[in-house]
Protein backbone atom coordinates (compact mmCIF):
# COMPACT_ATOMS: atom_id res chain seq x y z
CA UNK A 1 0.00 0.00 0.00
CA UNK A 2 2.77 2.46 0.89
CA UNK A 3 4.59 1.42 -2.27
CA UNK A 4 1.54 2.27 -4.35
CA UNK A 5 1.26 5.60 -2.50
CA UNK A 6 4.92 6.29 -3.39
CA UNK A 7 4.27 5.56 -7.05
CA UNK A 8 1.16 7.75 -7.08
CA UNK A 9 2.91 10.63 -5.29
CA UNK A 10 5.74 10.45 -7.83
CA UNK A 11 3.28 10.42 -10.70
CA UNK A 12 1.28 13.41 -9.42
CA UNK A 13 4.54 15.25 -8.73
CA UNK A 14 5.68 14.58 -12.29
CA UNK A 15 2.35 15.71 -13.74
CA UNK A 16 2.64 18.91 -11.71
CA UNK A 17 6.13 19.53 -13.10
CA UNK A 18 4.83 19.02 -16.66
CA UNK A 19 1.66 21.14 -16.29
CA UNK A 20 3.51 23.98 -14.58
CA UNK A 21 6.33 24.24 -17.13
CA UNK A 22 9.03 23.37 -14.55
CA UNK A 23 9.97 20.28 -16.57
CA UNK A 24 10.85 22.43 -19.58
CA UNK A 25 14.46 23.70 -19.29
CA UNK A 26 13.86 26.55 -21.77
CA UNK A 27 11.04 27.80 -19.52
CA UNK A 28 13.28 27.51 -16.44
CA UNK A 29 16.06 29.51 -18.10
CA UNK A 30 13.47 32.11 -19.11
CA UNK A 31 12.53 32.39 -15.43
CA UNK A 32 16.15 32.67 -14.30
CA UNK A 33 16.98 35.32 -16.92
CA UNK A 34 15.88 38.46 -15.06
CA UNK A 35 18.02 40.76 -17.20
CA UNK A 36 16.61 39.45 -20.48
CA UNK A 37 12.97 38.97 -21.51
CA UNK A 38 11.89 37.70 -18.11
CA UNK A 39 9.17 35.06 -17.78
CA UNK A 40 8.08 35.14 -14.12
CA UNK A 41 5.54 32.29 -14.50
CA UNK A 42 7.43 29.77 -12.43
CA UNK A 43 7.16 31.90 -9.30
CA UNK A 44 3.51 30.82 -9.30
CA UNK A 45 4.57 27.15 -9.07
CA UNK A 46 6.02 27.87 -5.65
CA UNK A 47 2.88 29.75 -4.59
CA UNK A 48 0.62 26.80 -5.50
CA UNK A 49 2.88 24.12 -4.07
CA UNK A 50 3.52 25.90 -0.77
CA UNK A 51 -0.18 26.74 -0.29
CA UNK A 52 -0.98 23.01 -0.22
CA UNK A 53 2.28 21.92 1.41
CA UNK A 54 1.88 24.31 4.32
CA UNK A 55 -1.45 22.74 5.32
CA UNK A 56 0.01 19.24 4.95
CA UNK A 57 2.86 20.02 7.34
CA UNK A 58 0.48 21.51 9.91
CA UNK A 59 -1.40 18.18 9.86
CA UNK A 60 1.82 16.13 9.81
CA UNK A 61 3.24 17.84 12.89
CA UNK A 62 0.32 16.58 14.99
CA UNK A 63 1.01 12.95 14.08
CA UNK A 64 3.66 10.38 14.94
CA UNK A 65 2.64 7.93 12.19
CA UNK A 66 1.30 8.55 8.70
CA UNK A 67 -2.27 7.72 7.64
CA UNK A 68 -0.89 4.42 6.33
CA UNK A 69 0.92 3.70 9.58
CA UNK A 70 4.45 4.60 8.43
CA UNK A 71 6.80 6.49 10.78
CA UNK A 72 6.86 10.24 10.17
CA UNK A 73 10.38 11.05 8.99
CA UNK A 74 10.67 14.81 9.38
CA UNK A 75 14.06 16.54 9.06
CA UNK A 76 15.77 17.24 12.36
CA UNK A 77 18.74 19.22 11.04
CA UNK A 78 18.34 22.94 11.78
CA UNK A 79 21.83 24.35 11.40
CA UNK A 80 22.57 26.81 8.61
CA UNK A 81 26.18 25.94 7.90
CA UNK A 82 28.74 26.21 5.14
CA UNK A 83 27.87 22.82 3.66
CA UNK A 84 24.27 23.93 3.19
CA UNK A 85 25.10 27.26 1.58
CA UNK A 86 28.03 26.12 -0.56
CA UNK A 87 26.20 22.96 -1.67
CA UNK A 88 23.04 24.90 -2.56
CA UNK A 89 25.08 27.50 -4.44
CA UNK A 90 26.85 24.80 -6.47
CA UNK A 91 23.45 23.27 -7.21
CA UNK A 92 22.09 26.67 -8.31
CA UNK A 93 25.01 27.16 -10.72
CA UNK A 94 24.32 23.77 -12.32
CA UNK A 95 20.60 24.60 -12.48
CA UNK A 96 21.40 27.86 -14.29
CA UNK A 97 23.71 26.15 -16.80
CA UNK A 98 21.15 23.67 -18.17
CA UNK A 99 17.78 24.58 -16.65
CA UNK A 100 17.41 21.12 -15.10
CA UNK A 101 16.96 20.33 -11.43
CA UNK A 102 16.60 16.70 -10.27
CA UNK A 103 12.81 16.19 -10.50
CA UNK A 104 12.30 17.76 -13.94
CA UNK A 105 15.34 15.88 -15.28
CA UNK A 106 13.79 12.54 -14.29
CA UNK A 107 10.46 13.56 -15.84
CA UNK A 108 12.28 14.62 -19.02
CA UNK A 109 14.02 11.24 -19.00
CA UNK A 110 10.54 9.73 -19.18
CA UNK A 111 9.91 11.57 -22.45
CA UNK A 112 12.84 9.67 -23.94
CA UNK A 113 15.01 12.78 -24.20
CA UNK A 114 18.66 11.87 -24.84
CA UNK A 115 19.73 15.23 -23.38
CA UNK A 116 17.95 14.37 -20.13
CA UNK A 117 19.79 11.03 -20.15
CA UNK A 118 23.16 12.81 -20.39
CA UNK A 119 22.20 15.16 -17.56
CA UNK A 120 20.83 12.41 -15.28
CA UNK A 121 23.91 10.21 -15.83
CA UNK A 122 26.15 13.14 -14.86
CA UNK A 123 23.93 13.96 -11.88
CA UNK A 124 24.19 10.38 -10.60
CA UNK A 125 27.96 10.58 -11.07
CA UNK A 126 28.01 13.80 -9.02
CA UNK A 127 25.99 12.13 -6.26
CA UNK A 128 28.31 9.11 -6.35
CA UNK A 129 31.31 11.40 -5.93
CA UNK A 130 29.61 12.81 -2.82
CA UNK A 131 29.16 9.28 -1.44
CA UNK A 132 32.80 8.45 -2.12
CA UNK A 133 34.04 11.55 -0.35
CA UNK A 134 31.59 11.39 2.55
CA UNK A 135 31.15 7.69 3.25
CA UNK A 136 34.37 7.10 5.18
CA UNK A 137 34.00 10.33 7.15
CA UNK A 138 30.63 10.41 8.86
CA UNK A 139 26.98 9.46 8.37
CA UNK A 140 25.16 11.99 6.18
CA UNK A 141 22.69 14.26 7.99
CA UNK A 142 18.93 13.88 7.56
CA UNK A 143 17.74 15.28 4.27
CA UNK A 144 16.46 18.86 3.87
Amino acid at each position, binding site marked *: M*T*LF*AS*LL*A*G*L*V*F*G*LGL*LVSGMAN*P*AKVIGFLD*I*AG*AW*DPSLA*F*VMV*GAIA*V*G*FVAFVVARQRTV*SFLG*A*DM*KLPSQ*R*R*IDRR*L*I*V*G*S*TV*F*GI*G*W*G*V*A*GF*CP*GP*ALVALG*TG*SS*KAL*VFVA*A*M*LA*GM*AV*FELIERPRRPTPA*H*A
Partner: protein
Amino acid sequence: MTIDWNAFAPWPALGGGLLIGVAAAMFLLLNGRIAGISGVVGGLLKPARGDVAWRAAFLLGLAIAPAVYASFASWPALRVEAGDGALVLAGLLVGLGTRYGSGCTSGHGVCGLSRLSPRSLAATLAFMGAGFGTVFVLRHLLGL
Protein backbone atom coordinates in the same frame (compact mmCIF):
# COMPACT_ATOMS: atom_id res chain seq x y z
CA MET B 1 13.67 44.57 -16.72
CA THR B 2 11.26 43.52 -19.48
CA ILE B 3 8.61 40.88 -19.02
CA ASP B 4 8.13 38.26 -21.72
CA TRP B 5 4.32 38.46 -21.87
CA ASN B 6 4.12 35.91 -24.69
CA ALA B 7 5.67 33.24 -22.49
CA PHE B 8 3.97 34.36 -19.27
CA ALA B 9 1.54 31.64 -18.18
CA PRO B 10 0.61 32.04 -14.51
CA TRP B 11 -2.43 29.72 -14.50
CA PRO B 12 -0.72 26.51 -15.67
CA ALA B 13 2.14 27.36 -13.31
CA LEU B 14 -0.25 27.79 -10.39
CA GLY B 15 -2.22 24.65 -11.30
CA GLY B 16 0.95 22.60 -11.71
CA GLY B 17 2.20 24.01 -8.42
CA LEU B 18 -0.99 22.87 -6.69
CA LEU B 19 -0.43 19.36 -8.11
CA ILE B 20 3.16 19.39 -6.81
CA GLY B 21 1.82 20.47 -3.41
CA VAL B 22 -0.76 17.65 -3.45
CA ALA B 23 1.98 15.14 -4.33
CA ALA B 24 4.22 16.39 -1.51
CA ALA B 25 1.23 16.26 0.87
CA MET B 26 0.43 12.67 -0.18
CA PHE B 27 4.01 11.56 0.27
CA LEU B 28 4.17 13.22 3.68
CA LEU B 29 0.81 12.11 5.06
CA LEU B 30 0.73 8.60 3.54
CA ASN B 31 4.41 7.64 3.52
CA GLY B 32 5.63 9.93 6.27
CA ARG B 33 8.39 11.25 4.05
CA ILE B 34 9.67 14.47 2.53
CA ALA B 35 9.27 14.63 -1.25
CA GLY B 36 12.83 15.77 -1.89
CA ILE B 37 13.88 14.34 -5.22
CA SER B 38 17.65 14.62 -4.75
CA GLY B 39 17.34 12.84 -1.41
CA VAL B 40 15.14 10.09 -2.83
CA VAL B 41 17.64 9.50 -5.66
CA GLY B 42 20.72 9.90 -3.47
CA GLY B 43 19.52 7.26 -1.03
CA LEU B 44 19.63 4.69 -3.82
CA LEU B 45 23.39 5.16 -4.07
CA LYS B 46 23.88 3.80 -0.54
CA PRO B 47 21.16 1.19 -0.56
CA ALA B 48 19.93 -0.12 2.79
CA ARG B 49 17.53 -2.99 3.36
CA GLY B 50 13.88 -1.96 3.11
CA ASP B 51 14.92 1.45 1.86
CA VAL B 52 15.03 0.84 -1.89
CA ALA B 53 11.52 -0.08 -3.08
CA TRP B 54 9.70 3.10 -1.98
CA ARG B 55 12.42 5.23 -3.61
CA ALA B 56 12.22 3.27 -6.85
CA ALA B 57 8.40 3.45 -6.84
CA PHE B 58 8.43 7.25 -6.40
CA LEU B 59 11.00 7.74 -9.17
CA LEU B 60 9.11 5.38 -11.48
CA GLY B 61 6.03 7.56 -10.89
CA LEU B 62 8.04 10.63 -11.99
CA ALA B 63 9.34 8.89 -15.11
CA ILE B 64 5.93 7.62 -16.29
CA ALA B 65 4.36 11.06 -15.81
CA PRO B 66 4.94 12.11 -19.46
CA ALA B 67 3.15 9.01 -20.78
CA VAL B 68 0.20 9.62 -18.45
CA TYR B 69 0.20 13.34 -19.31
CA ALA B 70 0.11 12.44 -23.02
CA SER B 71 -3.10 10.47 -22.51
CA PHE B 72 -4.86 13.73 -21.52
CA ALA B 73 -3.01 16.19 -23.75
CA SER B 74 -0.39 16.14 -26.48
CA TRP B 75 3.06 14.69 -25.78
CA PRO B 76 4.94 17.25 -23.65
CA ALA B 77 7.34 19.37 -25.71
CA LEU B 78 10.46 20.11 -23.66
CA ARG B 79 13.24 22.25 -25.05
CA VAL B 80 16.83 21.80 -23.89
CA GLU B 81 19.20 24.42 -25.28
CA ALA B 82 22.35 23.24 -23.49
CA GLY B 83 24.85 21.12 -25.43
CA ASP B 84 26.22 17.82 -24.17
CA GLY B 85 29.27 19.35 -22.50
CA ALA B 86 27.13 21.85 -20.61
CA LEU B 87 24.71 19.07 -19.63
CA VAL B 88 27.53 16.97 -18.18
CA LEU B 89 28.90 19.94 -16.23
CA ALA B 90 25.42 20.93 -15.03
CA GLY B 91 24.58 17.37 -14.00
CA LEU B 92 27.78 17.00 -11.98
CA LEU B 93 27.19 20.32 -10.21
CA VAL B 94 23.55 19.51 -9.49
CA GLY B 95 24.36 16.02 -8.21
CA LEU B 96 27.20 17.14 -5.97
CA GLY B 97 25.55 20.39 -4.82
CA THR B 98 22.18 18.90 -3.89
CA ARG B 99 23.83 16.19 -1.78
CA TYR B 100 26.14 18.63 0.02
CA GLY B 101 23.27 21.06 0.49
CA SER B 102 20.93 18.21 1.56
CA GLY B 103 18.19 19.11 -0.88
CA CYS B 104 17.02 20.68 -4.11
CA THR B 105 14.06 22.67 -5.46
CA SER B 106 11.60 20.11 -4.06
CA GLY B 107 13.12 19.26 -0.66
CA HIS B 108 14.17 22.79 0.32
CA GLY B 109 12.08 24.91 -2.07
CA VAL B 110 8.70 23.21 -1.79
CA CYS B 111 8.77 21.09 1.38
CA GLY B 112 11.20 23.17 3.41
CA LEU B 113 9.42 26.47 2.75
CA SER B 114 6.06 24.78 3.40
CA ARG B 115 7.20 23.84 6.88
CA LEU B 116 8.72 27.31 7.40
CA SER B 117 12.26 25.99 7.89
CA PRO B 118 14.85 28.79 8.15
CA ARG B 119 17.50 26.30 6.98
CA SER B 120 15.55 25.57 3.80
CA LEU B 121 14.89 29.27 3.25
CA ALA B 122 18.65 29.90 3.37
CA ALA B 123 19.25 27.03 0.92
CA THR B 124 16.51 28.25 -1.44
CA LEU B 125 17.90 31.81 -1.44
CA ALA B 126 21.36 30.38 -2.18
CA PHE B 127 20.34 28.21 -5.14
CA MET B 128 17.91 30.77 -6.57
CA GLY B 129 20.55 33.49 -6.29
CA ALA B 130 23.15 31.23 -7.91
CA GLY B 131 20.70 30.30 -10.69
CA PHE B 132 19.86 33.94 -11.49
CA GLY B 133 23.53 34.87 -11.31
CA THR B 134 24.67 32.02 -13.53
CA VAL B 135 22.17 32.80 -16.29
CA PHE B 136 23.15 36.47 -16.09
CA VAL B 137 26.84 35.66 -16.48
CA LEU B 138 26.33 33.09 -19.26
CA ARG B 139 23.80 35.06 -21.29
CA HIS B 140 24.67 38.67 -20.71
CA LEU B 141 28.36 38.81 -19.76
CA LEU B 142 29.68 35.92 -21.84
CA GLY B 143 26.95 36.09 -24.50
CA LEU B 144 26.50 32.29 -24.69
